[in-house]
């Protein structure tokens, strides 16, 4: 569980509706696009409300962990990922990757989303290295293997693929569009 990281943690424990959402909204405005907020609350109704609020404001509701009385909600601030132009030449679409996985080819799936995004929904056996940590952690990857890089919409994975190419990885393929439309197998927690 220590793998689940948030950029900002908001303590809304003991607060009754509407305060958890009022505070979430306020805290969220201070985050940078793409950052993850963890909201800790004890109000049971906060789960449905955080989810609905996120959807209505365009933020990404990732999921909620329940630990006894405390609910931990994870939300990623809306970003303009989709609008960034992709540069990495080597791409594959979701269904092609799905076929390769089914054929159990010896391939690596690298998920470069934030850990909170990964934890609640990811491709089985995908390796999690958030984009921001790739610079230091690229050594964990095997240059000899085909690496399929996935994120939510194909943008962060494009940046990750470029970074790996710079570091001498030659078999790096960006998965397009990524988890946002992934219909294959997934796993959680």
């Amino acid at each position, binding site marked *: 569980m220590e793998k689940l990281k948030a950029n900002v943690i908001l303590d809304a424990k003991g607060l009754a509706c509407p305060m958890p959402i009022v505070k979430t909204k306020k805290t969220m405005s201070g985050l940078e696009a793409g950052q993850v907020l963890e909201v800790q609350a004890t109000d049971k109704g906060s789960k449905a409300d955080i989810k609905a609020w996120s959807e*209505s404001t365009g933020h990404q509701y990732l999921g909620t962990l329940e630990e006894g009385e405390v609910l931990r909600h994870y939300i990623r601030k809306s970003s303009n990922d989709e609008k960034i132009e992709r540069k990495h030449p080597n791409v594959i679409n979701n269904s092609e990757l799905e076929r390769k996985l089914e054929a159990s080819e010896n391939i690596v799936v690298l998920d470069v989303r934030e850990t909170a995004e990964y934890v609640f929904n990811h491709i089985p056996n995908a390796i999690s290295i958030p984009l921001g940590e790739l610079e230091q952690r690229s050594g964990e990857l095997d240059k000899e293997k085909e690496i399929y890089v996935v994120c939510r919409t194909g943008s962060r994975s494009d940046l990750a693929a470029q970074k790996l190419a710079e570091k001498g990885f030659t078999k790096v393929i960006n998965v397009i569009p990524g988890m946002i439309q992934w219909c294959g197998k997934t796993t959680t927690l």
Partner: protein
Amino acid sequence: MTVNAMTSKEVTRKVFSKEELFILDVRNESDFQDWKIEGENFKYLNIPYFELLDGVEGIMDKIPSDKEVLVVCAKEGSSIMVAEMLADEGLTVSYLKGGMKAWSEHLEPVKVGDLKEAGEFYQFVRIGKGCLSYMVVSNGEAAIIDATRMTDIYLEFADSIGAKITHVFDTHLHADHISGGRNIAEKTGATYWLPPKDATEVTFAYQPLEDGNLVEIGNVEINIHALYSPGHTIGSTSFIVDEKFLLSGDILFIDSIGRPDLAGLAQDWVEDLRESLYKRYRELSEELLVLPAHFMIIEELNEDGSVSEKLGTLYAKNHGLNIKDENEFRKLVTENLPPQPNAYQEIRETNMGKINPDEEKQREMEIGPNRCAVR
């Protein structure tokens, strides 16, 4: 302008007297779709409170200035916030005190008739959830049937009319709400009756309620006559009180009939249900006043807020009692059923005494409409 607190009791009076009310429900859309305050002349606007955090200017043109406005949320906090914002814009509005939580727990006692000798019959209308429970009072003694978990209301009511509760009944093992029967019996020393076929897994002592049982309330001869009528559950039992009132439990409602699937045995119980409704009830007097354990839609309420109808009238008007073809009947009660009540398995286990959730959890389990019927 100002913000007032409106109680569930005041809203209930408005439902009964068919008054107009404009309800601004600030809960989630899905919560609102699932369950809301129903009134024949109520109008609604559903906008989640979290879309109004920056102000209510955007919805001012949707809120009438010539109608009473009530802001509603789950517990009351958000409705107070939104009501104050509306007041800042110049409106006079109310919020629902205690929110939908209080609405779900409100019971309104309504007298449904007098007994032949000295005595009265009261129906407790749980307006927000559609549960109906009963108190028969005679000569200083009272019996309660299908009590909800808000037991203080019955105890205080009995106290206020100077009656001692001596018998408590459940017509069946409920799946939509938590019974207060055992709790009341423990507090008052009353006898708790349950149909034994529904009680095979209960963890506490009870008095088996069987076909033909006669119970007296007060020293005036008031008969409570049990009538085995399986179908909604295998043990479901009806009561005829004072040869005048028929407590039909979850077998027969005003505009619908019981569903046989909540204990997972729909196919097995269809024939029981048909036998109860088409044979056993047929043999009873058409003059009996049917008093069910639920209502489903607000149109089932009488002018005074009570829910009752003569058995003869139901045989003429209730669709579920007029299906000649057995296969068609089977289809109605086993196919295309409405969703099952929230947490119905946990509610059944609570009523068996197998689990003992705290009050907050019980409240959460009961949220939403009752959904015990098919039409």
